[in-house]
């Protein structure tokens, strides 16, 4: 009994240290920001516009790419195919590529003279310096999180349940939408939130593709360069608080949905 208790204490201690590691720099920043500067920043239309832009472009990027990423995750969880390990490695690449390099790669992919660029021009869309380009840069660096989380979720759904449904006459599509996806839902939502969050914080890849309109990470950098820490900090604090509220709300909504499924 005594041994069991002491390992719990060790875990609690280590866990607290990790939490402190995350909280301490943030708290330091919060404490250095006066409530008045925070209030004034919240009134600044450039700041609120930028935060809104960051949220909706990342949300759009996540939603759009989820349509293709979740099926890919399902395939990775269920099927064996040659070079599967290579594919898994490729999916992890965007995480490790230095952000500026990713931005330059994307630039080469969507600029005027490329296939993507020409398609864009045909519908009047120029990716450079445009929310569409921002969304692509955000998606590129964050999609691995969604694919990996969703894949783990699907891998956790017992195949025999799916097979049972098939033997009872359900189509594979019905099996996917009524059994696999709901049972993997918690992991998929985690992946969606991670992809959304990671996209929101991207700077290096986005700034190469689009400086204007400014997403908040770029705005903070510009404010710091032009006006100094004093004016960059309130923007950071505001952004962090709004993001925190957003993620708590998203996870709470996901839990609600999950408990419905469990019924």
């Amino acid at each position: 009994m005594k041994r069991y208790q002491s390992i719990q204490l060790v875990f609690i201690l280590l866990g607290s240290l990790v939490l402190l590691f995350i909280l301490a720099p943030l708290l330091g920043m919060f404490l250095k920001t006066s409530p008045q500067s925070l209030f004034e920043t919240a009134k600044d239309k450039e700041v609120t516009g930028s935060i809104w832009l960051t949220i909706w472009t990342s949300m759009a990027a996540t939603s759009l790419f989820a349509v293709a990423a979740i099926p890919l995750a399902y395939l990775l969880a269920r099927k064996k195919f040659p070079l599967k390990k290579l594919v898994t490695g490729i999916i992890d690449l965007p995480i490790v590529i230095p952000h500026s390099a990713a931005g330059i790669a994307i630039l080469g992919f969507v600029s005027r003279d490329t296939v993507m660029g020409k398609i864009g021009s045909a519908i009047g869309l120029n990716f450079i310096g445009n929310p569409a380009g921002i969304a692509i840069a955000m998606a590129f660096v964050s999609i691995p999180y969604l694919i990996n989380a969703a894949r783990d979720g699907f891998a956790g759904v017992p195949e025999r349940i799916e097979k049972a449904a098939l033997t009872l006459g359900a189509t594979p599509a019905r099996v996917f939408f009524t059994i696999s996806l709901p049972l993997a839902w918690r992991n998929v939502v985690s992946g969606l939130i991670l992809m959304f969050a990671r996209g929101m914080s991207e700077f290096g890849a986005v700034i190469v593709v689009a400086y204007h309109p400014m997403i908040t990470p770029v705005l903070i950098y510009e404010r710091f360069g032009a006006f100094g820490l004093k004016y960059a900090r309130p923007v950071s604090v505001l952004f962090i608080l709004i993001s925190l509220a957003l993620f708590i709300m998203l996870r709470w909504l996901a839990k609600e949905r999950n408990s419905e499924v469990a019924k």
Partner: protein
Amino acid sequence: MMKKYFLLFITALISICMFGQHKNNAILGDLIIYHAGSLSVPFKEIAAEFNKLYPDVKILLESAGSVASARKITDLNRPCDIMASSDYGVIDNMLIPKYADWNIKFVSNELSIVYQEKSRLAGQINSKNWYELLMKKEVAFGRADPNADPCGYRTVISFQLAENFYKKPGLAKMISDKDQNYIRPKEVDLLALLESGSIDYIFIYRSVAIQHNLKYLALPDEINLKSMDFAAQYATAAIEINGKEPGKKETVKGEPMVYGVTMLRDAPNKPAAIAFLQFLLARDKGMKIMEKNGQPSVLPMVSKNYDKLPKELKPFAKQEK
């Protein structure tokens, strides 16, 4: 037995003394230099040559916009020995007097239009028609952000000078309004856009074109901010950029572009910094490399705080009369 220990002791004592002597006179250690993006290529060369003379100095070069570099010193309290800015004004306004005491103006540059073989209309562009060609729909050009980078505000000033020089009213506004999605914070970010083919032309320093083997179109001296002879003409143009706080604005007048360099008052490695500056500013050493890279020397120029210059560096500046 005693004799052995005695000999050992004497040897140790002598070594320590020699080592101490060596340390006092030697130039060594880390040397931190914050510099403008456009100085990246020449400074890397100069650092390599400097290391041939002083191999024990580890030179740490950090490139950033001139204002961002100053902020690293003033706001982030990051240690720095030398700061070299593409606009001497950044040092005068942001670092003197709290962080530095003096400023040496050392090289100039000129604004030009840089492009590649594959740029649209590359075969036709010249110093008489560039403003018409750039306004065409299929041509895209980029420039630096005036609020973040001296190259940015210099570009807009040269648009105004062009309006007067070519006698085309409204020219400055027309060009500034076009292709704003290709504005980037630092002039060297534009290179990525140009080299990837996303844009055809960029407004950037001639030295950068030379260093990156790109084609460039020389603009008339009346508008390229190169020459002291046209200082009065340059001063007829002005631009408003972000001031010290969000919402506040500052006016910047046109003037010949001059780069400044200083040693920070709290420089962690003053001996190496002075040695580096002596090397950089020497006509046959650092300055020769700068000229080779497309940046002519302007030494010596009047320095406002001439009296505060270290004696080793006084030969590189002139006193204000």
